């Protein structure tokens, strides 16, 4: 794989940092976030951040794994450099959501789920997925 940081991607990473309030270059890849993450991600948090550090914005943004983050905040709590991978992941999700690219469809979602779930599951789920 050819690593070729594109100027356009650098700009998008900079914008992501401004939107989330995070500094991606602070990460020194210790891997504590990945070790503590319960989400069984194909592309775990430290790998997502590494792609961003290498300027591979679309690899991070289009990873399916970002949708498995459950905001448990274990990564943010344990990071020795006070980086919040959870915030970075939410920033990436927001790029999709604000571009009308949601992961849940109100019309086709399971009606039984809506009827029997505690409201907080529906409300927080909608915030993260629509």
């Amino acid at each position: 794989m050819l690593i070729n940081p594109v100027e356009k991607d650098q700009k998008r990473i900079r914008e992501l940092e401004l939107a989330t309030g995070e500094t991606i270059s602070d990460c020194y890849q210790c891997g504590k976030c990945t070790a503590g993450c319960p989400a069984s991600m194909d592309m775990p948090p430290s790998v997502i951040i590494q792609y961003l550090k290498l300027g591979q914005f679309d690899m991070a943004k289009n990873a399916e794994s970002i949708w498995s983050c459950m905001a448990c905040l274990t990564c943010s709590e344990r990071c020795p450099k006070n980086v919040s991978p959870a915030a970075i992941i939410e920033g990436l999700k927001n790029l999709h959501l604000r571009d009308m690219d949601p992961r849940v469809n109100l019309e086709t979602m399971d009606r039984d789920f809506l009827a029997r779930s505690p409201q907080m599951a529906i409300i927080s789920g909608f915030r993260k997925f629509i």
Partner: protein
Amino acid sequence: MTKCTEDNKPIMVGDRTIPPPDARYITISIMGQPYEVPETLTILKAMEFVGYQFTRGCGCRGGICGACGTFYRIEGDHALQTGLACQTVVEPGMILAQVPFFPSNRASELDLETKMPADQQIATMYPEIFRCVGCGTCTRTCPMDIDVMGYIAHFKRGDIMGGAENSFDCIMCGLCAARCPANISQFNVAMTARRIASARLTPKSECTAARAEQVRSGRYEPMLAELCEMSKEDLKTLYVEREREPDLAKPGEWMPEDQTKL
């Protein structure tokens, strides 16, 4: 442009508008064009004054049907304002672009016979209510001063009756739905909730049901037949000489002398 007489008095071309003789004229913008209109007119009357004819977005003209929901701005002010065209008086610099109605979302089927709890019914018909971010834009938009965000909050927490009651003044103008960032059609959710509340949550009136049963059983048929046979004079006499419960009688205390018809 407003038609004028030779000495520059504006000619009324609209519907039933008679401005006072000393009415001042102000400039407003309608659909991108400037017009001079008497300052005492409502938006609806002002638009008709200059020659527009409303075939949509106009109804009772009395502030209660919700057909004429209007967005407008005042030149120099960044804020978007709302009101009913039939109730809102024009202001200098008002900028108008009438929309006949706003496309809203309405769930297709309402099952009033279901055993599903009312709150689950609303949740499954209108899941978008759970997208409400509590921004309150709807409440600030409502021309009837309803706390729209408030009644949606009631529905979210399962209080269908409370939300139904709080939405009672709604005239279905649709302005709230037009501005909602979560794309909720609040007024349709509220209407559905009110229908569910009446059909399923309000206690049934037993005395009404009992009376209806009496009527269905034919109890009043002989009496009606008797009345139909009577002459006009006899009917008049019967009416004038009828027994009437005194206005301030305590409930259950007064009984007529002739109790055969009870």
